[in-house]
């Protein structure tokens, strides 16, 4: 799809980026769909295709198993299943895509949460013959919980239901009804056949009743620029740049990635948690000075006054700053075999801040199938999500996750093993 000339043009032009996470159960045809997107956008190379063809033959299949393209590990190929999130890439002339390919079963919640944490769009696949299953509902719930702003429900295997409009309408209506309980700001429902290629890249001749976009067209045109918070300035300080060289003797810059809002020289700002105020004197982006910085730019901010600023601090606007909080109310997804229990102590990483935390209370466990809140729950097991109260050793400079996915999220780390055991989304802090 990309020609040489276009590619060179893209070097200088503003080609943008869409990250999406795929979901769907084992036999819904997810690997086939990804294979189809890669194949039809000419992102599969001949040597990769040849390797897959010869592996398929060696396994005695009479078709080319596109899933072999995506199952990268020896044990996955042996078992014919996907066991871990993988990231894949393809591009069309105006957009680059990063797919977080999450496995449909075992450890689904943990993997879905991982893949969805960075996604702009969630793609849920359902089998037209089965209609909505528990799994499709669960995936929609998780994507909504993770605040993935765009959702596509792809009703797959339309070829196996005679491209029936009635079936499409029925699943569409059922899902819309279910979605009213969730927070899904943008929903698109597309009837496809990943195997035959209907409405994936090319418009299907078999479904004249469908007037919407093809899947790829939708992925290419969905508007993601407005999903960022450009109002509330949030700049977690990551690293202090102090060259101490002759040329830059007095240089002292605060490096970090803008998490929200637009920063400009002259802005009056506050440094948290100290509460010291100053003014932005200049903003460097590497070797050039810039007029403004916005998410997700990595920049270096300079302040007029010589205030004490270090890693873990946050720069915000004086009248619009997060309150430092040590009591945190959050939804936590538990990711390890030993359950999460009250009184447990863990390390916590939030923006560039690291501290320790204690679990004060588990308020309820959320059943991601029924949205039922089990208030009698006393622990969270692997892949379970619950509302948890935490007390932290250092104040977190946080926002609700619904407002800012960067300042509203954290990870929990087991201090003995060093493993990431939990993912948290903040409701409120105090």
């Amino acid at each position, binding site marked *: 799809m990309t020609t040489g000339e276009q590619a060179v043009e893209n070097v200088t032009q503003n080609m943008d980026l869409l990250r999406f996470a795929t979901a769907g159960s084992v036999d819904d045809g997810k690997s086939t769909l990804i294979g189809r997107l890669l194949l039809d956008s000419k992102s599969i190379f001949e040597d990769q295709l040849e390797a897959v063809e010869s592996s398929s033959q060696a396994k005695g299949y009479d078709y080319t198993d596109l899933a072999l393209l995506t199952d990268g590990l020896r044990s996955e190929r042996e078992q014919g299943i996907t066991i871990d999130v993988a990231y894949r890439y393809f591009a069309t002339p105006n957009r680059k895509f990063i797919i977080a390919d999450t496995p449909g079963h075992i450890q689904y919640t943990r993997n879905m949460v991982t893949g969805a944490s960075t996604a702009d769009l969630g793609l849920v696949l359902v089998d037209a013959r089965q209609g909505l299953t528990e799994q499709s509902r669960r995936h929609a719930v998780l994507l909504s919980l993770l605040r993935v702003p765009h959702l596509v429900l792809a009703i797959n295997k339309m070829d196996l239901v005679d491209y029936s409009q009635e079936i499409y309408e029925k699943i569409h209506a059922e899902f819309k009804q279910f979605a009213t309980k969730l927070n899904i700001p943008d929903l698109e429902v597309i009837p496809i056949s990943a195997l035959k290629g209907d409405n994936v890249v090319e418009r299907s001749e078999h479904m004249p009743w469908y007037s919407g976009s093809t899947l790829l067209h939708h992925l290419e045109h969905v508007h993601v620029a407005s999903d960022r918070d450009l109002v509330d300035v949030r700049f977690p300080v990551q690293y202090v740049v102090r060259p101490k060289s002759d040329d830059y003797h007095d240089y002292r810059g605060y490096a970090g990635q803008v998490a929200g809002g637009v920063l400009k020289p002259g802005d009056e700002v506050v440094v948290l948690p100290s509460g010291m105020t100053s003014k932005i004197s200049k903003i460097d982006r590497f*070797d050039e000075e810039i007029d403004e910085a916005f998410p997700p730019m990595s920049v270096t901010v300079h302040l007029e006054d010589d205030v004490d600023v270090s890693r873990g601090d946050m720069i915000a606007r004086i009248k619009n700053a997060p309150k430092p909080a040590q009591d945190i109310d959050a939804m936590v997804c538990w990711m390890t075999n030993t359950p999460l229990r009250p009184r447990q102590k863990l*390390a916590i990483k939030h923006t560039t801040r690291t501290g320790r935390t204690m679990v004060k209370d588990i308020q309820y466990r959320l059943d991601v199938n029924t949205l039922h809140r089990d208030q009698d729950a006393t622990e969270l097991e692997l892949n379970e999500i619950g509302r948890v109260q935490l007390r932290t050793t250092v104040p977190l400079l946080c926002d609700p996750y619904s407002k800012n996915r960067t300042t509203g999220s954290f990870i929990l780390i087991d201090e003995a093993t060093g493993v990431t055991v939990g993912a948290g989304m903040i409701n409120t802090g105090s």
Partner: protein
Amino acid sequence: MSAPPTHVDYQLSQLDQLEAESIHIFREVAAEFEKPVLMFSGGKDSIVMLRLAEKAFFPAKIPFPVLQVDTGLDFPEVLETRDRWVSRLGVNLVVASIDEAIEKGIVVDDGKTSRNRLQIGTLLNAIEENGFTAAFGGGRRDEEKARAKERVYSHRDEFGQWDPKNQRPELWSLYNGRLHEGEHMRIFPISNWTELDVWSYIAREGIEIPSIYFAHQRRVFERGGMLMTETPLNPCKDGEVAEERTVRFRTCGDITLTGCVESTASTVEEIIEEIAVARVTERGATRGDDKFSEAAMEDRKKEGYF
């Protein structure tokens, strides 16, 4: 609170987004790890890495050394470029030589094992000897299907091994760098870049890369479906005939294993045009070391390869 700005769309191009993400990773590692090092081969990916590191800490110097595993079979053009970059940026260069490692008995050259494989022990020894706790690598997930599964922070145990089935979940941009004594982390800041992104960045930044990436005349011969360079280190075997052709390299590796492609692309722009319509991956075209088995890369990575 002011109204959302409307006069511009505040949109970063995908290349700028990738750059911002990579720089965030470089700074995170420099802030949290005791002794990082950047693995530097002198090839295009590691040069892009060095450029990103330069930007991450500018105007301060890059706060960690670079480490090159000298296979003894590297292209001289690549080593020259390496030296120019190192001196321009004023970074310390640590060289881990396979020849020295053989001499010291750290790795064994049995005449059958490729130098690529001998890099593993040589590299792990250099990491251990120098006490490096984090090693940046230029690996990209688009290169290979095992790499598509690898995290940005890739945990290695005290033997340097990667356990693909037991990776830490990686959420948002919150990276977990916890280590036990003797363990280290491999860090891949350009995980989300594709080959085309790397070339686009080289073009945009006007980055100097080794001359072997551009079309030139070279004596080559065919072996195993690839075009190999004729050198005293890699002579023709029976039945192989070397001839002068116009070629360039898509990757820089061991001279005895790295093939080249016929090409007349002599500028970065021409290379981008060529890559954009290429139907074979860079590794498929030119890397003999990945052809040994379907899981060659995965197996090497488990042992500690980068």
